[in-house]
Each structure stands twice: as structure tokens, then as C-alpha cells.
């Protein structure tokens, strides 16, 4: 641990540099006697220095996947490596090169904020002389220097989350895993955490984050893997995923007064319409029309088709497709 004065990742010092930061192949996890696997044949690879997002609804298998990669969950079959180290074969070696920011705060409440960082460094063999300075440096970066002697119980949710990120960085991991990093944070704290993730990526740390928030995934991740029921449904950059959808623009309509199927049929016949999705709920009949080219050009003929079907439009919204549309396209249901 000779290069541990900063949080630079210690790539190259005895670690297989050609290996992907994270590699998962045919990974399966079945808990106890459960018949359906939580992770069901997942495969993906994360490049060094990349911010990789695992996007999926709650219960999709994201946390289990991160649990296996961080050596806390035992895989049923398949392969999982971090920085070229097999996490099942050499969990101790893997723990030295990865950092974890768990979904639930698990700060040590017998220690103050700085103590959490300093002792974490001790567990990881950071030389005693460097621990304090490193802790102060990270506290400052996370905007927590004035909270150094505060007990974790007295920190706000956002402060605790930042302290956990700082702790995860104390041993200069090559890969940092963030499990739902901004769930439960207020918008300001969320933004701060997002900025830190961007900063980390810029400094060369590979970041793997899970989220059920499509905006977060689109904003932070270089590439996003969409998972559901423990399977990988798609993997690309956020823009690549959206570009893969039929249509370049969306028109959302709220309707009254006609049968949805009839209206859908009429709209589909309009030139320039790539698809129509029924998004109705108990409260209202809603359709999302995907149009080639600009939404404005297709709007008039679409509204005409609705009128022809005998329905009345009460609300119109134009937009661009998002990762949520990708998810609905893949699974037929919303993320939340």
C-alpha cells in the first residue's frame, strides 16, 4: 500500500490490468428454497474507469448482484470477478480492491465520523501515519470537515451517505459499488452525491451503481444495464438505449369518450406514427404515441385521428423518449 496518500485507484500494482473492472458471466443466485432465482443467468462486463448503472425495479436482482460482487452473498453458479479477482475464490483479495456504499446506512455508531474513516483504513492496512490526513482530506471533499467529531446518529441522511462514500474510498479501491446511492435523500443531498460520483469517475475510479431511478441512471452512467427478474434485458449507453426505441418523439394524450382500442387503431394508421402504447390507469385513459421526426409535425394528424374515433382530448404533452420508455418497451410495465 505504498500509493495511498490520495484516493487515486491503485491500478497496475500487481493487478491484472487487462481484466475488466467487473465481469459477471452466467451468474445465478437462488436464496434458500425459493423456486425463482433472484439473479438468473446475468452476464455483463464493466470497463475500467467507467460509470456503470444497473437499472431495474425493486426486486430485480440488482442488490443481490452487487452483494455477490462485494463478497457478501454467495453465488449459486456462474462467475463474478472484480479487477480480475474471482470474488468467490478469493474474497479476501477482492475486498482489498473494492469499496462498498450499501443501500442501508451501516456506520459504526461507537465511533465518530472521523473514527469511522480512520478505523476503516486500519482494517485495510493503510499505514497509521497516513490515516488521519487521508480521513481529513476525504471529510473535506465530502463537505464534512466540521462534522469530524460528530456521532453518525446525529448526521442527516445526506451527510451519512457522504460519510459512507468517504469511508468506501479510504483504502483507494479500484471499483466502488454504490447500491441505490440517493434513495431517501432530499434533492440537494442527491445532487451533492451525484457530483461526487462524477468526480470519482473523473479521477479514474470505476463506479458501479444500482438505481431504480431512470433520471439518475441517465445522468450518471456511461452505460446502463436494464435488469428485471434477475435477467439483463438491454445494455447500452443511455442515449443508445433510447435511440433503439421506435420513434424519435413522444406525444402523451389523455382522452375521454371512446374505446381505447378503437382510438389506438386509428392513430396507428397516421403516417409518421411508429407506435401507440396504452398507459391508462384507473383514473384516466392515457396513450403514448411515438412519432418519427418532430412531435409537432405528427400532432395535427394524430389529434385528427382521435376526433375521428369519437374521443375528446383533455391533455396533450410532447416529449422525448426516456429510459423509462425503454424499460416499458422491454417489460411492458413502469419502473415504479
Amino acid at each position, binding site marked *: 500500500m505504498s500509493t495511498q496518500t490520495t484516493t487515486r485507484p491503485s491500478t497496475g500494482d500487481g493487478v491484472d490490468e487487462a481484466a475488466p473492472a467487473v465481469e459477471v458471466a452466467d451468474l445465478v443466485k437462488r436464496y434458500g428454497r425459493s423456486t425463482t432465482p433472484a439473479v438468473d443467468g446475468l452476464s455483463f462486463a464493466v470497463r475500467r474507469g467507467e460509470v456503470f448503472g444497473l437499472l431495474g425495479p425493486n426486486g430485480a436482482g440488482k442488490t443481490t448482484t452487487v452483494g455477490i460482487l462485494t463478497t457478501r452473498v*454467495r453465488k449459486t453458479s456462474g462467475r463474478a470477478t472484480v479487477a480480475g479477482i474471482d470474488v468467490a475464490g478469493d474474497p479476501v483479495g477482492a475486498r482489498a480492491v473494492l469499496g462498498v456504499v*450499501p443501500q442501508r446506512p451501516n456506520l459504526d455508531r461507537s465511533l465518530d465520523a472521523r473514527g469511522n474513516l480512520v478505523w476503516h483504513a486500519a482494517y485495510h492496512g493503510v499505514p497509521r501515519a497516513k490515516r488521519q490526513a487521508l480521513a481529513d482530506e476525504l471529510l473535506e471533499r465530502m463537505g464534512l470537515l466540521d462534522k469530524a467529531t460528530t456521532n453518525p446518529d446525529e448526521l442527516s441522511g445526506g451527510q451519512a451517505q457522504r460519510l459512507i462514500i468517504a469511508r468506501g474510498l479510504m483504502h483507494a479501491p479500484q471499483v466502488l459499488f454504490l447500491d441505490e446511492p440517493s434513495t431517501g435523500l432530499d434533492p440537494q443531498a442527491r445532487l451533492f452525491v451525484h457530483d461526487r460520483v462524477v468526480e470519482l469517475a473523473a479521477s479514474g475510479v470505476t463506479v458501479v451503481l444500482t438505481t431504480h431511478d431512470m433520471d439518475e441512471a441517465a445522468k450518471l452512467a456511461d452505460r446502463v444495464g436494464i435488469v428485471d427478474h434477475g435477467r439483463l434485458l438491454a445494455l447500452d449507453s443511455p442515449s443508445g438505449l433510447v435511440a433503439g426505441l421506435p420513434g424519435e418523439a413522444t406525444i402523451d394524450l389523455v382522452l375521454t369518450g371512446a374505446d381505447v382500442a378503437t382510438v389506438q387503431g386509428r392513430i396507428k394508421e397516421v403516417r409518421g406514427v411508429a407506435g401507440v402504447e396504452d398507459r391508462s390507469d384507473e383514473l384516466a385513459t392515457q396513450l403514448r404515441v411515438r412519432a418519427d421526426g418532430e412531435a409537432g409535425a405528427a400532432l395535427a394528424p394524430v389529434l385528427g385521428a382521435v376526433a375521428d374515433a369519437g374521443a375528446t382530448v383533455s391533455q396533450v404533452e410532447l416529449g422525448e423518449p426516456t429510459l423509462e420508455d425503454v424499460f416499458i418497451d422491454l417489460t411492458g410495465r413502469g419502473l415504479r
Partner: protein
Amino acid sequence: MSAPTATRVGPGQGRAFLGVLGRDIAVTGKEFGTFISQVLMQPFFLLFVFGVVLGQLGYVTPGYAQLLLPGLLALNAFFVAVQATAIPLVIDFSYTKEIEDRLLAPLSTRLVAVEKIVFGASRGLFGSLVMIPVGYLVLGNVDWQLSGLPFSALLLVLGSLAGGAAGLVIGTLVSPRKINVVFALVITPLLFTGSTQFPFLQLENLRWFQVICALNPITYISEGLRGALTPSVPHLAWWVCLLALIAACGIFGAIGIQGFVRRALD
């Protein structure tokens, strides 16, 4: 980090082990006052009431306090260790998950469990040793055979380790909702069946009770200590005590470490 292979990254497990143990010791140091009062209260009153009060009232013979003191050393070695290991683990695994950061240290999960035993044992050993000055203060004079001290130290170390291992078993098997019941149903009987307050061999007319006492590891610490320090009191042979304590360490250790790994990994 200049090791040649991908698997040899980071510090040796020994340093990680010392780091985790260091944290536990530092935390104990910070709450030393609470720790010491917790450790001393019960044995102090036992010693005072049974050794001094009942002696002065003439209900117990004057030599009784000399019989009781080694038993209280044994009791503290085991109990303080059980509590130091079991209670934090029950809370950690069920609610706070505070132990997770240590489970993610570059240290095998089994060694984290061993650290818990060693730490519990070191608290137990300390709790036992502070009873010696307390004994001198309360009883005025303590009549020990000093040549027995080295073997006594060995017995106390083994007894503390057995206590730490038993604490690991309780801490990983018991849910927090049941911890009060377990302490009432396990700790209280252990307290009174450890041959702490009486010599084991003189129970021949209460055979069923003697059999129960034989199952309590504290019996072998108490009896071994009496053999070493106050040999005039009837006591079990030293090798019986030694073997029984080694066996207790082995059995509780194996079950406890297995339970710990099961709780730590999904």
C-alpha cells in the same frame, strides 16, 4: 501493493485482524467507566454479602470467602466474555448492521469470528483479574498458594476463550426478540451451576445437581483455580479441568464460527 499476483493485493490478514481487534479495544477504552462498573457490580456484592456480611453474622464459616473468591474469578472470566461477544452481535446482525464494514475488511469471515472470540475473551480476562484487588479490599486477606498462579492464568485464558466462543454461539443463534429470554434461561442457571459458590466434589449427596454442574464449563475454571490457589479445599484434578476447558473452547468455537459465517454471508 507490490505483490506479484492478482490475488495478493492489500495488507496481510494479520494486519486486518489487528485493525478489527484494535477498534473493539479502542471502543472499550472510550467507555471504560461503564465497562468496569458493569464487570464489578455483581461479583462485588456476591463477595461482600456471602464473604463478609454472612460471615460476620455467623451464618457461614470464616473460610468460606476463601472458597468463594476463586469461583468469582472463574464466573467473571466466563460471563464477561459471553456478554462482550453475544450482545453486540445480536444487535449488529439484526438491526444496525454496523459490523458490515468489518466483514468487508480484507480478512476471512472466519477470522472476523475469531476476533470476536478473542476480544470477548480479553474482556473476560480483564474482568476476572480486577476481581483480585477487589478480593483483597473486601476480604482483608487472601490466602493463596502463589505457585499456582501460572496455571491459574492458563485456566483463566481458556475459560475466557470458552466464554467468548459461547457468546458467539448465542450471538449468532438468538434473535434480538429472544435475547432477554435466553439470558434469563441460560445465564441464571449458569451462574449457580458453575461450582462458583461450592466445591463440586462435595455435592455427592446431591448427585443430580452435580451432574448438571458437570455440564457447566465454569465448574472447571472454578475447580481448577481452587486446585491451584487453595489446594486444601476439595477440588477436581487439574488435568480434568484443562481437558474440559479445551473441549469447551473447541465445541463452542466450531458451532459459533459456523453460525457467524452463516449470518455474515447470504
